[in-house]
C-alpha cells in the first residue's frame, strides 16, 4: 500500500492538484461557492461579491509584488482605471460586458505599463514612492477629466448587458464574478509554471543575477506590471458593475494599503495567500460591524468608535502578522495541513 504522496513522474510533479483528494475537495468547494447565492442573504451576497473582487485584485497585486518583487502603492488608482474604463465603454459606447471586462483589463494593463517604466531604474522604496505618485496623478485625472469620468460627482454604470441578457441583481453579478475570479486564479497558477512566471520569480530573488542568466529584466518587469494591472483592471470593472456609481472617493489610497495588507497577511508570493488575505481583510470589518452592531444598543458610543476600532484592528492585524507570521496565512495553512497529513503519527 502507498503510504504517502510520491511524485514518480514529471507529470505528477507538475500536476495542478497534488492528490485526487485535493482535486475532489476543490470541486466540492467550488460547488459550495456556486450554491452560495441561494442561501446567503442580500447583505452577505454583497459581501461575497466584494470578496471575489478583492481576490482578483489581490492576486494581481501579488503577481507584481509577491512574485516579481516590485512594490506598488498604485493599486487603488489602477482599480479606478479599470472602473472608469468600464463606465465609459459600457455607458457611452453601450458595449456588452464580455467585451467591456477584458477591454477594461487591457486598458489598465497599458496604464500599468506606463507607470511601470520607472521600475527599470527604481527599486524598493523609491519604486514604492513612484507608484504612490502614480496614485495621486491618476486620482487627479479622475477628478478633473469630467467628460470621461464625471469628475467628483461620479459616473453611473449601466447593468452588465450582452444582447438580451441583463445581469441586474447581485446574484446574477455573482455568477459573473465567480467564473472570472476562478478563471484568473487558474491562469495565474499556470503562469507560474511557465517560463514567464519563472522569470518573474528570478527577478524577485535577485534581479542582477537573473539578468546575467539571460532574463531580460526590463521586459519581464514591464510584463509583470501589465499582467498585474490586467487583473486589477478586471477587478475594477467588476467593482464598477457592482457599485453602479463610482467617483474618485471609491479609490482612496487606503484601498491600495488594504490590498497590500491582503497579500502581506495572506502570504507574499502565494496565490492561496492572496485568496486568504482578500477574504480576511474584506470580512474583518463586516465581522467587527456585527459585533459592534449587536452591542451598539447598549453602547451608543460604539457607532462613533467603530471607524477607529476598524482601523486599529486592521493595523494591528498587519503588525502582528508581520512580526509573528511573516509568511502569512498561507504558510500557517500549510503547517496545519502537514500536521494533519500524517496524524496521529506526525513527528
Amino acid at each position, binding site marked *: 500500500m502507498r503510504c504517502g504522496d510520491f511524485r514518480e513522474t514529471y507529470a505528477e510533479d507538475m500536476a495542478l492538484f497534488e492528490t485526487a483528494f485535493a482535486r475532489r475537495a476543490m470541486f466540492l468547494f467550488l460547488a459550495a461557492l456556486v450554491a452560495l447565492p441561494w442561501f446567503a*442573504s*442580500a*447583505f452577505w451576497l*454583497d459581501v461575497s461579491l466584494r470578496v471575489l473582487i478583492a481576490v482578483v485584485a489581490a492576486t494581481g497585486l501579488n503577481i507584481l509584488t509577491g512574485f516579481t518583487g516590485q512594490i506598488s502603492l498604485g493599486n487603488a488608482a489602477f482599480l479606478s482605471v479599470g472602473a472608469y474604463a468600464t463606465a465609459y465603454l459600457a455607458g457611452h459606447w453601450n458595449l456588452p460586458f464580455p467585451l467591456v471586462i477584458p477591454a477594461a483589463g487591457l486598458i489598465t494593463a497599458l496604464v500599468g505599463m506606463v507607470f511601470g517604466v520607472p521600475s527599470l531604474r527604481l527599486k524598493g522604496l523609491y519604486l514604492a514612492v513612484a507608484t504612490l505618485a502614480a496614485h495621486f496623478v491618476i486620482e487627479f485625472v479622475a*477628478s478633473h477629466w469630467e467628460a470621461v469620468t464625471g469628475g*467628483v*460627482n*461620479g459616473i*453611473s454604470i449601466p447593468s452588465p448587458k450582452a444582447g438580451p441578457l441583463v445581469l441586474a441583481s447581485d446574484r446574477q453579478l455573482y455568477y459573473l464574478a465567480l467564473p472570472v475570479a476562478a478563471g484568473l486564479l487558474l491562469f495565474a497558477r499556470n503562469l507560474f509554471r511557465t517560463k514567464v512566471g519563472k522569470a518573474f520569480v528570478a527577478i524577485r530573488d535577485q534581479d542582477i543575477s537573473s539578468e546575467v542568466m539571460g532574463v531580460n529584466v526590463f521586459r519581464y518587469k514591464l510584463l509583470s506590471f501589465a499582467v498585474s494591472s490586467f487583473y486589477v483592471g478586471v477587478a475594477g470593472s467588476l467593482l464598477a458593475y457592482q*457599485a*453602479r*456609481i463610482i*467617483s474618485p*472617493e*471609491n479609490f*482612496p489610497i487606503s484601498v491600495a494599503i488594504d490590498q497590500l495588507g491582503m497579500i502581506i497577511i495572506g502570504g507574499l508570493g502565494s496565490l492561496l495567500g492572496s485568496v486568504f488575505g482578500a477574504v480576511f481583510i474584506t470580512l474583518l470589518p463586516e465581522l467587527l460591524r456585527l459585533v459592534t452592531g*449587536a*452591542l451598539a*444598543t*447598549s*453602547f*451608543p458610543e460604539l*457607532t*462613533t468608535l*467603530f*471607524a*477607529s476600532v476598524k482601523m486599529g484592528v486592521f493595523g494591528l492585524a498587519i503588525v502582528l502578522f508581520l512580526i509573528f507570521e511573516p509568511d502569512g496565512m498561507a504558510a500557517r495553512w500549510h503547517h496545519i495541513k502537514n500536521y494533519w497529513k500524517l496524524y496521529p503519527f506526525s513527528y
Partner: protein
Amino acid sequence: MHLMRNAMRLAMAVAVLATGQAVAQEIKVGGIFDLTGITSDVGKSYAQGVRDYVALTNGSGGVNGKKIKLIDVDYGYKIPEAVSAYKRMKEEKVVLINGWGTGDTLALKNFINEDKIPYFSGSFAGDLTDPAKTPYNFFVAPSYSDQIRAWLSWVKEDWKDKSRNPKVALFYGDNAYGKAPMEAGRRFAKENGIDVVDEEILPGNFQDATSQLLNMKQKGADYAYINVTTTGVSLVLKGAKALGLATKFGSNPYGFSEQLPLVAKEAAEGVTGVMPQVPYGTPVPGMKALIDFNKANHGGEAHDALYVRGWTSAMVWVEALKRADKAGKLTGEGVRAALETFKDFDLGGLTSPVTWTATDHRPSTTTAVFIIKGGKLVKVKDYTFPRKPEWLGL
C-alpha cells in the same frame, strides 16, 4: 463605578442578544451619518440632534405607541460606505432613512427611487427638490441655492459704493457638496448686478489656502463665499488674516455656526453666514424641548445650530411617520404621501415652516443671514424668495 455600570450594560446587551429582542411594535429608521469623515466637524452634532429627538419621541409615547428603532452607521463621508450601509438598511426593511452628504445622497438617488424609501438628507442641494426627478428625497431647510441667493442679497445691500458692482469670489470644496449651489449663485449674481470675479477650488483635505487667497486678491474680490465645512472655513479665514486681506467673507450653514468663532477666533470677526436653523438657545418656542431634554439627559450640555438642524429633520419625519401610521400606510410610499401633505408645518421657530407638495419638494425658501460680532452670532435679517418654477431643481 463607571466600569461597573459599563459591565452591567454589557451583560444586559449579551442577555438581550441571547434571548432575542421581543419588542412587538417597532418602526425601523436608518441613519447614515458622518462621525469620523472630513465633514465630521459638523456631522457629529447633526447626528446627535437626530438621535436625541428620536430618544425624546420614544420616551414620550413614540409614534402612536410604536417605538422608533434608529439603525445608524458612520459612513465617514465615503460614497461606497454609504452605498453598502444603504444596502444593509434596505435588508433591515427600514421605512425611512436620515442621511447626510450631497455626494452620497446623489449617488443613492436611483436606488432610493427604485426601492421607494423616503430619504432625508443633511444635504440641501437644489438638485433634490424636483419630485419629477427625485420623488423620495427630502430635507428640512431652504436649499443651498436659496442660501447662496440670500447671502448674495445681503452683499447687494451691504455694498455702498454705487459707482461699480460688488466683486464676489466663490470658494468651494472639490466635491458635490461644494459645487452644489454654484450655478444658482452665478446666475443670481448676474441677474442682480454682482460680478463673480473669481472661483477657487479647495481640495478635499486642504491644509493651506494661501495660493487661492492670493489669486482672489489679484482679482480684487470685495466679498467671498466659502462653501466648505467649519474646519475649512476657519483655515481660509486664518489664511486671509495672515495675508491682511480686506475681503468680507461669508459662509454656508455647514461652515457657519457657533463652532466657527471657537475655531477661527479673531479671524471670524465680521464674517457673515447663512443660518436656516436658529443657534442653540435662541429664545423661540421650540427651543424649550431641546434645553429640557439636554438638562434631563446630558447634564444641560450646550449644543449648536447643527444639533438644532438634526433635531428639526427628525421632528419633521417623526411627524410624517405619525401621519402615515394614522392613515394605516406605514410604508415608503405612505410616508412620502404623508410628507406631501405638509403645509406650513410649524417647527416652533427652530427653522422656517415646511411645505411640500407632490410637484414641489422645496421645504421652504426663507433663511436668515447672521454676522459674527465679538465672537457671538448676531442676526442680520431674514430673506425670503418666491417659489420660481425655473428655480425648481436648481
